[in-house]
């Protein structure tokens, strides 16, 4: 949830990380940038989360802070985090991929944005 699409996407990324590890234990030692595009906002959410999963997997890193700049149906995201430390980060499970199940990006009457989907672990 968030007051803008950007904030909802950033919060979705935090929620993804919370499935994998303790978000509060992740220090911001290194930043990386990712770019994604998709035909619509919902698929952009899936692409965004999958980009984070990919970076976690290949860099053996966890990310706790996320910032995105949205331009239509493409985004540039900045992920900040550090190498995995299983004990300190209280790791639980790897994320395999974000799916299109229960996929929804919408704005309610109060202007609150929702960004959700099921992640396979």
């Amino acid at each position, binding site marked *: 949830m968030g007051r803008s699409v950007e904030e909802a996407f950033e919060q979705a990324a935090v929620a993804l990380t919370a*499935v*994998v*590890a*303790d978000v509060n234990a992740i220090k911001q030692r290194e930043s990386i940038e990712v770019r994604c595009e998709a*035909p619509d906002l919902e*698929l952009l959410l*899936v*692409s965004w989360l*999958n980009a984070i*999963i*990919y970076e976690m*997997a*290949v860099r*053996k890193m966890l990310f706790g802070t996320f910032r995105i700049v949205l331009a239509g149906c493409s985004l540039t995201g900045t992920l900040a985090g550090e*190498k*995995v430390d*299983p*004990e300190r980060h*209280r*790791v*639980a*499970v*790897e994320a*395999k*991929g*974000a*799916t*299109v*199940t229960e*996929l929804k990006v919408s704005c309610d009457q109060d202007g609150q944005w929702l960004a959700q989907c*099921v992640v*396979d*672990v």
Partner: protein
Amino acid sequence: MDPQSLLCYSDFEWWIKPTGQMRVPAIIYADKQLISGMDEKVREQLINVATLPGIQRAAYAMPDAHWGYGFPIGGVAAFDPNEGGVISAGGVGFDISCGVRALQTTLTANDLEAQKTDLAEALFRGVPAGVGSTGAIRLSEPEMDSMLSGGAQWAVGKGYGNPADLDRTEERGRAIGAQPECVSREAKKRQCEEMGTLGSGNHYLEVQRVVQIFDAVAAEAMELHENDILVSIHCGSRGLGHQVGTDYLKSMVIQGYRPIPDRELACAPIHSELGQHYLGAMRAATNCALANRQIITHLVRGAFHQVLPDVKLTLLYDVSHNTCKIEEHSVDGGLRELFVHRKGATRSLGPGHPDLPPPLQAVGQPVLIGGTMGTESYILAGTKQSEKLAFSSACHGAGRAMSRTQATHRWQGRQIIEELRNRGVLIRTRSIRGVAEEAPGAYKDVSAVAAAAEQAHLARRVARLVPVICVKG
């Protein structure tokens, strides 16, 4: 799910007759209690699968079915390419060719007792497991492609295991028709450091003890006896398979078959460029899973030999439960070549099937059912009836009864490890939180699932095993 919403054909067979867009019925094999414990989403997803083009006979759910993405987990569906049949990335699952491999040892429970702690440590040191873990093997790009084409046969050729292991692996350890060129660079990069790793979540490496024999004849053919020690490996195609699933799910959503009732059912006609590319990539990921379990077998043997040098480990069977395979099945009185999706479902070939190794011809294929670290696992044998019932398929495990969050609210990892230690089960893990999320109580009753599979004639119970050592990812 409310059993009243289904047509009861027998105590273990429940139908949803075709209505609306459904092309075939949906059939659930389970008892009333298991049905009551299933998510309503299983019903919804089965109905959706039954609407897909080219589907044959029915959309099936096994006794351990639960809510998945697109297809339910514990789902089976077969498609005829000549009737517009489709292939679905969500119908196979992200962990392509995830499966179970059972190794027999020359040990009995008594032989192991004094060395149990040392063996647990050796296995924990020897087999990388958990979030962020890496293996010792690094593959160059050409070697990666050779692995993706060759599967367990490639691994044995590199010295990871014995040629005899291949006799007891589905398709002799190699999926034919793999196309490494259909696997993205990202997927290959994700696999770079993950060969020979177990993964996390519900993946495990267990040392188990046979505590009960149900079918003496089948047990004899499988050389299973009470108190025998076995090793069970549950894992899949690691990062490469996950990325293949991710890449092709997106492609199928954007360019795949239309119309579909929900985009989570994204699929492509088998006779299409996208369908053929997915098939080539999926088979390459299958080979990655088969190679991975073969390498882990080699690591397990190494760990055993450090502690118990004289012990021999031979492969009982390796069977995958997230697959799509081309198989010949009888439909409307004739044999047809179908693409059988099994997502969280195990192939269950009956006695006499030509794909079975000679020692198992008389009794059927071992169906390996993983339990939880605190309960039990089962070895079943495929039945001839299973072909007519569900394209020769059976269940694959217990299935979760609650979410990971609910489990961590109810249990603490250290408490579970201590309780299991007091019951003689040694847990080794780098993730205490993972142990809480995987608490035995978070799963359904695997014994009820195995019994229902037998009563529905999908497979018959041969042996029950309990864990002795469990390395959790």
